[in-house]
């Protein structure tokens, strides 16, 4: 059967549905938020319940610089997308690269903090409840940053090969949506771990 014959006089049908990539990413973000919520709840529930030290107050230092790095990478990825839409590929690549640098810096910051906690304070996942909840929550976020960085780098490589143009900007938007989510989660994790948790 070809078309359903409409007995009514055919009106021109304006039919535009949302882009499936964006819908899919929005759904993924909902699911991921649920996962993070469970980890955040566990963190909040176990604050101050460890039987032994070290405690968050003793060992945690607020990573202000690296937080600024990550949050500003949201801006760079946003403007990169805008620039691509307007067709300025070179400017897009520069901002995109800057995003990767900023994300990479953040990841380095996390690594450095973990190194300090493990080697100076002897805090590991099995030390106490704080260690278990801290490494899993921050680690889950760092894992998402890593995945994001891999995806961003793939786009960068395609871009350097000259394969990313304004016609891809819809897909670029999907990826930057994910990156914004990773940043937004950090705001929550930061608040829970470094503000409420101490």
């Amino acid at each position, binding site marked *: *059967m*070809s*078309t*359903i*014959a*409409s*007995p*009514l006089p055919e009106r021109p*049908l304006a*039919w535009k*549905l*949302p*882009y*499936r990539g964006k*819908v*899919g990413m929005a*759904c*993924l973000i*909902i*699911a*991921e938020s*649920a*996962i*993070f*919520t*469970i*980890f955040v709840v*566990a963190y909040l*529930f*176990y604050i101050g*319940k*460890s*039987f032994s030290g070290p405690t968050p107050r003793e060992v945690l230092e607020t990573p202000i610089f690296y937080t600024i790095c990550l949050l500003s990478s949201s801006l760079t990825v946003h403007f990169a997308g805008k620039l691509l839409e307007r067709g300025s590929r070179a400017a897009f690549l520069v901002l995109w690269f800057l995003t990767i640098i900023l994300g990479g810096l953040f990841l380095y910051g996390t690594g450095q903090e973990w190194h300090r906690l493990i080697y100076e304070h002897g805090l*590991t*996942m*099995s030390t*106490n*409840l704080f260690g*278990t*909840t801290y490494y*899993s929550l921050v680690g*889950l976020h760092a894992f998402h940053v890593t995945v994001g960085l891999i995806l961003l780098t793939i786009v960068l490589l395609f871009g350097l090969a000259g394969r990313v143009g304004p016609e891809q900007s819809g897909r670029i938007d999907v990826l930057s949506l994910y990156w914004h989510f990773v940043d937004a989660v950090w705001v929550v994790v930061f608040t829970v771990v470094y503000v409420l948790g101490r």
Partner: protein
Amino acid sequence: MSSDAIAIQTAEVAGRSWVETLHEWVTTVDHKRLGVLYILYALFFLVIGGIEATIIRIQLMHPHNDFVSPQVFNRMFTMHGTTMIFFVAMPILFGFANYLVPLMIGARDMAFPRLNAFSFWLTAFGGLLLYFSLLGGNGLYGAGNAPDVGWWAYAPLASRAFSPGHSSDYWTIALLASGFGSIATAINIIATIVSMRCPGMTLSRMPLLAWMNLVMSGMVLLAISPLSAAQLMLLVDRYLGGHFFDTQAGGSATLWMHFFWIFGHPEVYVLIIPCFAFASEIIPVFSRKPIFGYPVMVGATVCIAFVSMSVWAHHMFTIGMSSYANSFFTITTMAVGVPTGIKIFNWLGTMWGGKIQFRTPMLFCIGFLFQFLIAGLTGIMLASSPFDWQLGGSYFVVAHFHYVIVGGILFALFGAFYYWYPKITGRMLSEGLGKLHFWLFLIGFHLTFDLMHIPGLLGMPRRIYTYEPGRGWDTLNFLVTIGAFIQGIATLVFVANLIISYFKGTKAGNDPWDAWTLEWSVSSPPAEYNFASIPRVSSRRPLWDLKHPEDPDSRYE
């Protein structure tokens, strides 16, 4: 199970080597083939889960029976529960959603076909992993076998100290893999429904099946994710020495219960809402009337989804929560009954005054309707926390949730099989065998699960591998087991019907039921591209409009 698939294909395209056909099925991204794969895979596990149930029932047939050891009994109920929920119910419903949603909304495939294939194979490997535990569960310690910690794996039972070896790890990783598969499928279904509808298919014209699968998928995102998170925590505990659920280091066993049931209760609705969807498609067609109260149906579904997200702790009344928590969860649980009741009245309203045709799909849906009502009523009883303190963890609970899952979900699913089998294969299922299947299953079901309530009321706890004679449970347990055998025979009749009708069934044609939704407008089985040209609809019943141009639905919208 894939050998069935091969048989199907070679029958159709003779002259093609079986390697090519197998390759085609393994690498397929077609939503219809993936749907069929999901369904066959689930049927395979249905048989396995059924065998496990039979072993449980044989063991409980007499007091002091020693058909299996207590250890094996523990493994059987764990594997039975896990298999039936994660590897039968979920994949079979996803299979139907995969097959039907694009056809019903006039799309040529799902939004992300390759992601779709990926989800199926993740789920498939999840099932294989779970059963590989029978071989690999021993691990280095030489302890353990199949998982034996119950399908909800309460802490600290699932911790290293009490579950040595790898059996619990297989359970965790199997659920994690199939969970990610489910989340991806849910994303796919939502994106398909939101972005792939054919012109004119506004949300208010969408078939209820699509609506309810949309709601179900939204619930999967919010319900399966917490389970995955909890499984990750359990893995951290078991492998990295974490203390999430380790009471020796300040961890909380109750937290696992909360996390598990935040998944576990919405899961019930994840399973039942697609069954509501089947009933909402089948009942109107066999009552020869459009569905009664379409907008209210949609509203009630969304309402159930919302409320069911805040009822989980009614599974935990017996652990001793505060009186505020008990009251809250009692009230919310009873509140779910309201939108569910609205649905039941809508289905009755659809049948009221209709020209009802008692074909097999309709019989199963009527069975569904009444049994689901009774299941809901025992649910309301258990929602009352003082009542639950008395009967929580007894056979009354087992009877209640099997009434939901078998009497509700499975009956609606059988109805769906009889209704859409002609579309999927091009042949009708035998009506005679179908009616035999229905009546045998109905008798077996009621014998088993009606009677099972009574030993529960008399104090028989669940998960015991045997019991003392003379407590008034003996005859009842014997009859329950007889009922289980009758259900088993009925299921064999069903499987025989599936196979015989595939080869000998009468040809179905495009539209054997004189139905109204888009999937009946294309050939049976549909071509790979579904629609030669994308249809355009102007009412909720596009095929009615086509068949009755003198009085189309669109005139009244």
